[in-house]
């Protein structure tokens, strides 16, 4: 029970903090994937934010560092680790991924009882993001992309044309077409 309370409290704080500095944020990673496919346990929560906006990033680091443990503390990285109540949250902007206003506009806003509302990447954009990261991280991210595509199609919640267009923009269309080549 104590872990549950601490966890909800940390997640609520993290969402509020990230939203304050990066209102365009979207939750990604396994947490977001779990809304579109059978849930798997996850050790951390990942936020996709615009880390290329160095001015805002500096303000965020200046604000967060006296209050929470944050690393690294300098500008220019693609990933920042934030510890709140000893739980880990990552702020990321993967290299090679184009986080454009259309992707931001297509986020899903989900009411989550203990935390109120969270924004997560759409299934199509999350699958594209996994395809981009599979270029570095390999098969495990490819499998996550396949899960999202297969289960979202089964839920009747997948815009294939948009997925292919975004795959093309992010230079992973060959992977997207291959994933779509089988029904399941």
């Amino acid at each position, binding site marked *: 029970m104590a872990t549950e309370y601490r966890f909800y409290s940390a997640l609520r704080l993290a969402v509020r903090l990230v939203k304050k500095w990066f209102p365009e944020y979207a939750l990604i990673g396994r947490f977001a994937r779990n809304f579109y496919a059978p849930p798997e346990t996850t050790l951390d929560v990942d936020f996709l934010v615009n880390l290329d906006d160095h001015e805002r990033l500096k303000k965020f680091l200046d604000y967060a560092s006296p209050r929470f443990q944050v690393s690294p503390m300098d500008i220019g990285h693609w990933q920042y680790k934030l510890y709140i109540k000893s739980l880990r949250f990552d702020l990321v902007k993967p290299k090679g991924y184009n986080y454009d206003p259309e992707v931001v506009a297509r986020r899903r806003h989900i009411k989550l009882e203990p935390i109120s509302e969270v924004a997560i990447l759409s299934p199509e954009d999350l699958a594209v993001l996994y395809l981009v990261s599979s270029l570095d991280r390999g098969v495990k991210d490819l499998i996550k992309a396949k899960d999202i595509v297969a289960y979202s199609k089964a839920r009747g919640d997948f815009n294939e044309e948009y997925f292919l267009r975004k795959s093309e923009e992010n230079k992973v269309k*060959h992977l997207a077409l291959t994933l779509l080549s089988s029904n399941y």
Partner: protein
Amino acid sequence: MKFQRVNDYLYVTLWDKQYKRPRRFYLGKSTNNKLAELLNVAEQLRVDPEEIRDYLERQMDPATRLTRTDLVVLALLLGAKAWQQNTDSTAH
């Protein structure tokens, strides 16, 4: 899926269902091509239709057509607890 090697470079031709025509993609140098390996894996990936049925019947919320939020939160909690236990045992 059809791979072609031209000099030291590798290409693949795929049916582009968006534009309804075959299309050639450049994959990089042919020696030890990781992208070609990924494409081969991607072609083999399947999700068991039985598991999809089970997900739709038991784990999806018919109102939102997304996974039930209680299951999503539970997955996070279990992960956080496992992580906490691991941290505690490391500290000991």
